[in-house]
């Protein structure tokens, strides 16, 4: 059984050298450093050891760590997920990578019937320190079977952590936290973010799971978002600023644990709430956030909260239909403007 350290004991500040990395390179850096730090970490999944290396995120790691710790697999998503569960229960820290999250639907028995409840039914004695990386496709015709985002499916189940980074800096810190967390984590990556860049510290660092980040401070309206919608929302906040509307952007970073306090504190200040979710509308994360805010601030909101989400439709393949499907900067701008000005 792993030793544990309560998250409250974690302190420190990242200093030192930084390098401009893409989102995919930040995932790579986190994986490499986790494997250097701890021989119990191993990486596997379909294609992790080939020259493409999951869009570059695992490229070359097999040369550094060998085939015992970085290995390709049969197309057996169920057995691979069960392997993570059995190995994690025995004290290893598996990192399983899926090139598309859609493949995880094959593994729901392992995730829901075994992994999520393993610690619970051991009366808190067992641990399941595994991380499953899953990429949500977007663009170039990914279509109905390669572009779903299933984050709410996992966030609904007790015992799972669901992490959705929106920038390279967060991707590295959150992946290191996920790998070294003693609880099972579904780590969901937006493919559309992969080439985006940011200065990232060279040393390993840690972003505590379940802590939202305020990406823009503001007073007029709170925009809550996460994952692949972060760039869209930041661009919308810039546009709104030019129109003298001050939007506060809260990046949840994790759906579970959910940092509702950061959302509530922001809405306390602004009185207005727009939630932008990279996923389907009904029974989604946006609905959950609005419900949580309504329970506390419901009678005091200055405008009706709004959801900006994918429509209740499967993802189309052709370019014009993709363009019509995904929410845009303008959608966010219009919703915020309406909330603030009443028009």
């Amino acid at each position, binding site marked *: 059984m792993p030793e544990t*350290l309560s998250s409250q004991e974690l302190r420190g500040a990242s200093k*030192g050298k930084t390098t401009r990395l893409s989102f995919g390179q930040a995932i790579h850096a986190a994986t490499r450093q986790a494997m250097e730090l701890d021989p119990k970490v191993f990486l596997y999944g379909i294609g992790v050891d080939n020259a493409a290396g999951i869009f570059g995120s695992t490229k070359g790691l097999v040369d550094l760590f060998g085939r015992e710790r970085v290995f390709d697999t049969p197309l*057996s998503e169920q057995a691979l997920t069960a392997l993570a569960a059995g190995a994690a229960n025995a004290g290893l820290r598996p990192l399983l990578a899926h090139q598309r999250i859609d493949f995880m639907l094959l593994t729901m028995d392992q995730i829901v019937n075994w992994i999520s409840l393993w610690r619970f039914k051991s009366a808190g004695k067992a641990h399941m320190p595994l991380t499953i990386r899953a990429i949500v496709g977007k663009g170039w015709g990914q279509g109905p079977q390669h572009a779903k985002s299933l984050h709410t499916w996992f966030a609904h189940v007790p015992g799972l952590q669901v992490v959705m980074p929106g920038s390279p800096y967060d991707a590295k810190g959150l992946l290191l936290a996920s790998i070294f967390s003693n609880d099972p984590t579904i780590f969901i990556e937006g493919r559309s973010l992969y080439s985006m860049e940011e200065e990232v510290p060279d040393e390993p660092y840690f972003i505590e799971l379940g802590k939202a980040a305020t990406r823009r401070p503001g007073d007029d309206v709170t925009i809550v978002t996460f994952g692949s919608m972060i760039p869209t929302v930041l661009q919308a906040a810039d546009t709104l600023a030019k129109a003298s509307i001050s939007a506060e952007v809260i990046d949840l970073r994790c759906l579970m644990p959910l940092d509702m306090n950061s959302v509530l504190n922001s809405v306390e200040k602004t009185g207005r709430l727009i939630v932008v979710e990279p996923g389907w509308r009904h029974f989604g994360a946006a609905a959950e956030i609005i419900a949580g805010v309504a329970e506390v601030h419901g009678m005091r909101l200055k405008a009706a909260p709004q959801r900006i989400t994918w429509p209740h439709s499967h993802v189309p393949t052709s370019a014009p239909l993709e363009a019509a499907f995904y929410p845009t900067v303008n959608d966010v701008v219009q919703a915020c403007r309406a909330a603030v000005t009443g028009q």
Partner: protein
Amino acid sequence: MPDGREPTKALYTRLYRTLRLIRRSQEALIEAYHPADEMRCPMHFCLGQEAAPAALSAIIRPNDTLMSHYRSHGYFLAKGGSLAAMIAEFYGKRTGANSGLAGSMELSYGPTRFYSGAILGGMFGMAGGAAFSQKYNGTDDITVAVIGDGAMEEGIVFETLNLATLKKLPILFLCENNLYAAYSRIEDRSTSHTLVPRVAPFGLATDTFDGNDPILLYRSLDAAIERIRRGGGPAFVEIMTYRICGHVGPEDDDVIGYRTPEELAKWRTRDPLPVMRAALIQAGASTAELEDIDSSIEREIIAAFDAAKKAEFLVFEDVRKFNSSGSYDPVVSRFGATGVSTFDGAQAETKLAPY
């Protein structure tokens, strides 16, 4: 001295004691279940199928892992689990193996490395992960994955057999073919009525044995496990056996009409307990020695029930905290921690390419 390690009488005494303990604890549970209704969880008894767990109990080591299906009581005891912790689990008490949170179907106990579950193929797949960790860590520990003929029809089973063979994992796949998945006969579920032919093409070692002969099973499984322990890769062993009790619960379920009285009567004559008892007498045990074993088992059972009935339940406010730990490996205390992301969102989305 069948295995060159232990005198026959001592070995047979261990096999008999475990077999008898499994049998008598099942019978005591069946008797106590109704009308008291203090054990409020579905329970699957293993009457008639005790030979395999009894044999394994004399072979496997504390550091080995055993993962089984929900008909698990025999295997829990075989892996060194305490009878008192098992009975208390069925009563739902905090002194149970899982503090009353798993019941009979998911009975598990980390310290003895025994696990079981109700969604059958999942446990079989996890056993692959346990064996992977044993190989990864460079130990000579092994994993035993116990499965029934029913769960052999789930897809993950074939994925796991392939992966384990590919990776040469130290795992014994032990399949109890008792002819029925709940109330469904194997002839109604597949055109092949034995499992080895379905599995052999993966390229792992396979064998078939009489599942009701504890001494034969001991010798065969001991050899199979020794081969695995020496790095020989996985093996699949099918044992032919039969459940002489109902599928679930204490009542006999033959009213459903899923099997014939003749078939049941035939298998009752193949009960492993009298076979083992006769073998032990043959090996030199006296009537007094047998009575000592039997009465110590009875005392153990009575004490386990008494303790379980007296124990407390957990409270839900404590139980809900078990869902997640919120904790990290201490390695993170060596990290620099959170600065602030200064991400510029005005960047083009990733243009996708085939790779």
